[in-house]
């Protein structure tokens, strides 16, 4: 069945059949002695919770770079988060000119342009309108971008793929707001603009705005974090991160795209013939094994659960397949319910490692019938300079000493 294709392709490392049918396992934990009976009171109640002092999980960002940290990225520790919701404090960041400090008492959203009735809404007024809560991922289109040129064997899942996060977002459908403003039904584009220093702006097709776009103020049950656009951001389910404009201050209804810097010179995909694809909004189906992954060490013979996340900007994940024998065979992983549209989907796969070199990977299929391709197939079509929108299969190489490294570099 699907194995025939996989065998014929040998897509990641060109590995021979000698590496097939490996059984693999995770590192075992040493047991620690039980704690003494508590004889002292614990801490009192507190107004706002914080995590245990023993937990150190953090976003990763490169501090030794010429890129100013105000326009840098920080990446979600995908290997150290569980389930499908990313804690707000660990949601990835990508700013273009720093995080502005906006007062919700004075910040407003202005809707104007091709509307019968331009309107300014306060944050409080938006909160009075009929609301919706939806669980959606946001992924930066530059996520996994280093892999176009082979990536680094030293890299791990956080550094390669940490520009995706998933939250429950609460807000108002943009369609509600546009209708209240008497939008011109023939208008085709809406410019969304932030109140950050660079006034980050993207032109969005009207169809998306009327379909499922939202102006959100809530994230995981509380107000948006400043890094995520407090007090208001645009949410375009399944579309590349930077189009979900943070610190949203303005929506202008237009009949053409503004051709802003971020939709011409940036976030466009350069092809081998020198042309560039523009307005590449949807994020295609993608999955990654997040644990164990690059940097982890396996122990032969011990039980090990492979787990990871899958997502698609075009609908719902319907299946995730795992190979632990370098693509010779694929078997279905279990999907954790609920499986939600345009959301991270958690998958699991029980496993044991037999101590031999191998490659493990996941691939997903979404509700449109599209299956995540090998990175080599994407490179065949798009070359190595497209920089953005890499949804290719992530291969993890397992060495005979159990060490896992990035296996995309053949």
């Amino acid at each position, binding site marked *: 069945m*699907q194995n025939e*294709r996989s065998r014929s392709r040998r897509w990641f490392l060109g590995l021979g059949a000698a590496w097939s049918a490996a059984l693999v396992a995770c590192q075992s934990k040493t047991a620690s002695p039980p704690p003494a009976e508590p004889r002292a009171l614990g801490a009192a109640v507190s107004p706002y919770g914080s995590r245990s002092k023993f937990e150190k999980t953090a976003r990763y960002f490169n501090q030794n770079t*010429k890129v*100013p940290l105000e*326009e840098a990225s920080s990446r979600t520790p995908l290997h150290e988060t569980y389930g499908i919701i990313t804690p707000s404090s660990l949601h990835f960041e990508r700013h*273009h*000119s720093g995080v502005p400090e906006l007062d919700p008492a004075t910040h407003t959203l*202005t809707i*104007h342009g091709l509307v019968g*009735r*331009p*309107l*300014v*809404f306060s944050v*409080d*007024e938006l909160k*009075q309108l009929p609301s919706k809560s939806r669980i959606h991922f946001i992924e930066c289109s530059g996520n996994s971008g280093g892999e176009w040129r082979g990536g680094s064997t030293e890299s791990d899942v956080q550094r390669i793929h940490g520009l995706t996060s998933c939250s429950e977002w609460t807000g108002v459908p943009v369609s509600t707001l546009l*209708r*209240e*403003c008497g939008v011109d039904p023939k208008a085709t584009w809406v410019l969304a*603009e932030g109140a950050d*220093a*660079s*006034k980050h*702006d993207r032109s969005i097709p009207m169809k998306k705005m009327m379909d499922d776009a939202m102006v959100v103020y809530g994230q995981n049950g509380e107000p948006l974090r400043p890094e995520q656009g407090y007090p208001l951001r645009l949410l375009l389910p399944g579309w590349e991160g930077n189009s979900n404009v943070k610190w949203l201050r*303005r929506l*202008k209804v*237009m009949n*053409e795209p*503004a*051709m*802003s*810097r971020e939709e*011409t*010179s940036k976030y466009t995909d*350069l*092809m081998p*013939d*020198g*042309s*560039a*694809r*523009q*307005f*590449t*909004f*949807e994020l*295609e189906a993608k999955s990654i094994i997040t644990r164990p992954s690059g940097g982890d060490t396996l122990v032969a013979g011990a039980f090990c659960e492979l787990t990871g996340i899958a997502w698609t900007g075009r609908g719902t994940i319907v299946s995730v397949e795992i190979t632990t024998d370098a693509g010779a065979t694929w078997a279905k992983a279990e999907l954790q319910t609920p499986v939600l549209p345009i959301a991270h989907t958690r998958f699991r796969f029980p496993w044991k490692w037999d101590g031999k070199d191998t490659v493990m990977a996941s691939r997903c299929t979404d509700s449109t*019938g*599209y*299956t995540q*391709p090998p990175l080599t*197939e*994407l490179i*065949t*079509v*798009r070359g*190595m*300079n497209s920089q953005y*929108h890499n949804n290719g299969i992530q291969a993890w190489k397992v060495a005979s000493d159990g060490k896992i490294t990035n296996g995309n570099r053949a």
Partner: protein
Amino acid sequence: MATARKRLLRVAQGVGLALLVAQGFPKVAQDFSPAVLAQSPTFGVGHAPNPALLQQIDIDVTPDGKGLLPGSGTAAKGKDVYTRRCETCHGPTGTEGPQEILAGGKGSLATPKPQKTVGSYWPYATTLWDYINRAMPFDHPSTLTPDEVYSAAAYVLFLNGVVGEQDVLNEATLPKIQMPNRNGFVTDPRPDTPIKRK
């Protein structure tokens, strides 16, 4: 929940906007200014923008030049603006960095080492004006006068050989500039991988 349902019922029964505003949204009801005419018809929130404030934030510029502010500049004048406000990040000739490379890269897009500069990649001169005006200099955005923006844009275009040193850029001339990569962009054709694996 129950209150919300009651509100909806009232609307459905045609009790109307006045009651909805008065009972459902007391903050608005207390403020019956002339702006109420511009409020959203269904929910009675929002107000008409103050024209002066709207003008302040309505900064975008489209390829036809709509949105450009009155003013003018030349590359000759722009050299001074560039040296004072741009050179630290972009280098003496726009090719040195340490930040974004602005000039050069002509003919490099289809090679293994493409250089995406204003001259080699950007399709519209209006985008350059807009971006300098909205976001540059990086640490002091929106501090250049319109004349300085025209001049800085002219200088960057001059470094790329797109305009001459004395060419005057203004609301009329800037949108007419034909950028070298104007026709370099195509729309998204994905999915583009050869096999859809059912």
